[in-house]
């Protein structure tokens, strides 16, 4: 197990290096003057230009610049935002809990509905429930989520008035210090009446929207994994022993069917962390996805560079964790190849 862990860790090093290289090249490819692109100032005097060029190390040879950049990242220096003049890492860390909270809620929504739905569909294979569910799953899988979000806002918020339209907190009624950055926890800590319920209400629609595609994927996957497992000999043995179908499905089959499903859930958390871009934009959710899009609009290239580096790093770490966990559950993986 330890060797497997070391091997997987070692494999991420070249990925990180290449990621640094790509983000390093990226900011260099931005058309126009590099000093202007990075400082966001126009019409700089030649002397000031030379001064800034030296200050940013752009007069150094390229390999030295890359070494400086990589060294900075290793020490936690991801650059400084042009607009807010604060370190990119700080900005990222303030916004990240919002994205994480949304991602976790979306994944909970998707798993808690998707897994049981898939199990039922497999148990009643070919029946009306199975067919309906697979139809719904196909719709979810094909859904342009930005449109889905707008439709939900239109129906749930504007017509029925059930949920708020955007944001995380109703700032007119509530204000609390971000202690953990998670609205659900902070609202409880604040002790204000109704604050927690307010945070929940704000989370409902974004979680549904972000969780729709994973829900469809999980339901389809659980169903097919379940169908496969139900054909196994040990399931027949369990049935022959006289166990009820409910017990066979719920205990014997489900446990084995869940292994691939859990892996796919884990891998999707990584994608969702970043895929939250669209959902956050629609709901004005103050997370890293919305920040990234706004950075493009503001031509804040250092923020973009650092932000992409950080998001990709998060995804790589999550995927690594899933891999390790999978190796823990399934010995065939860690001993194979």
């Amino acid at each position: 197990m330890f060797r497997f862990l070391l091997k997987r860790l070692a494999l991420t090093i070249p990925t990180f290096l290449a990621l640094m290289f790509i983000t390093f090249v990226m900011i260099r490819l931005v058309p126009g003057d590099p000093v202007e692109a990075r400082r966001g100032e126009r019409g700089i005097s030649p002397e000031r230009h030379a001064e800034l060029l030296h200050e940013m190390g752009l007069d150094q040879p390229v390999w030295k610049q890359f070494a400086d950049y990589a060294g900075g990242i290793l020490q936690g220096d991801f650059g400084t935002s042009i607009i807010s003049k604060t370190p990119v890492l700080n900005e990222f860390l303030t916004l990240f809990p919002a994205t994480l909270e949304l991602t976790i809620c979306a994944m909970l929504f998707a798993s808690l509905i998707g897994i049981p739905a898939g199990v039922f569909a497999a148990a009643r294979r070919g029946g009306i429930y199975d067919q309906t569910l697979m139809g719904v799953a196909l719709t979810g899988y094909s859904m342009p989520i930005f449109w889905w979000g707008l439709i939900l806002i239109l129906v749930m918020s504007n017509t029925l008035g059930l949920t708020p339209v955007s944001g995380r907190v109703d700032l007119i009624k509530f204000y609390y210090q971000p202690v953990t950055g998670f609205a659900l926890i902070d609202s409880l800590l604040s002790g204000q009446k109704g604050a927690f319920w307010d945070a929940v209400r704000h989370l409902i629609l974004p979680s549904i929207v972000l969780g729709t595609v994973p829900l469809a994927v999980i339901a389809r996957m659980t169903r097919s994994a379940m169908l496969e497992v139900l054909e196994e000999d040990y399931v027949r043995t369990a049935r022959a022993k006289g166990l009820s179908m409910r017990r066979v499905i719920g205990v014997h089959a489900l446990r084995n069917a869940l292994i691939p499903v859990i892996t796919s859930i884990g891998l999707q958390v990584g994608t969702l962390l970043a895929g939250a871009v669209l959902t956050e934009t629609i709901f004005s959710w103050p997370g890293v996805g919305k920040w990234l899009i706004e950075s493009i609009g503001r031509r804040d290239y250092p923020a973009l560079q650092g932000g992409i580096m950080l998001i990709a790093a998060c995804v790589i770490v999550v995927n690594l964790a899933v891999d390790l966990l999978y190796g823990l559950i399934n010995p065939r993986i860690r001993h194979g190849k």
Partner: protein
Amino acid sequence: MASDVTIAKAGQAAPPGAFRAFWAAFSENRGAVIGLAVVCAVVLIAIFAPLLAPYDPVEQFKGSTRLPPFWAEGSDPRYILGTDAVGRDMLSRLMYGARISLFIGLSVMIVSMVVGVAMGLAAAWFGGLIDVVIIRVMDLIMAIPSLVLAILIIAIIGPSLTNTIIAVTIVYLPRYVRLVRASALAELSKDYVTAAKVAGVGPFRLMTVTVLPNCLAPLIVQGALGVSDAILEAAGLGFLGLGAQPPTPEWGAMLADTRDLMLSHPWVMALPGLCILLTVMAINLMGDGLRDALDPRLRKS
């Protein structure tokens, strides 16, 4: 199970008509046939958009802005699906939008398939350093989430229709490369390949004529599903303002245009999204059917 039997039977009769065998298996799946019909309809609309569309998609009728579709009150029979904020005919825009979305989807699929096949076959044939480099680069592309990578690429090369295609192609390339490489490696160890080598077939001919046709089934399925993914991804970029630029009638960008109007004129927002949903769904249905018909082993989704 029933369709397995059909495939087996049809398989025995395959030599006289491989297509007929395929069609027998494909047409058994009702959903797939519906999907195919819708896809055909969308393709026809896209091809004949200039003939079918009542107006130019970017022409603005100043006197008739924000008209509702025909079923709602206050509609104008001249504009069946109503008009948008600046008085452009929705029906015409949606028809031309089919052109753009399908064009993006197909271009991405074709380019990434051609490049993917070339890189996958090269990796499988040469092995060694070339294989390692190709696979590492693909792993790296896959490590960055698709939309973020697309955004990164667009941020550098600027938003436009062509750049959307470039960005989405790069994002989806690894799937094809890995698929081709894996199937080619599996085929390379088989006896018929050895036989071909012994017979003196050169490497290029061996890979393209002998090996590639046997890797096609999963590739075709991936290609079909790749079109729908590309359409969704491109629409998402369009919605974020990073794809096709106004006044291009791209469905995602049309949605973004109408966000301010959403509350007062919901249909302007509802229609483009519905078009994306239906098109993508039809392609996915068709893709699932293709997968079941071409390769029963791939049936688990």
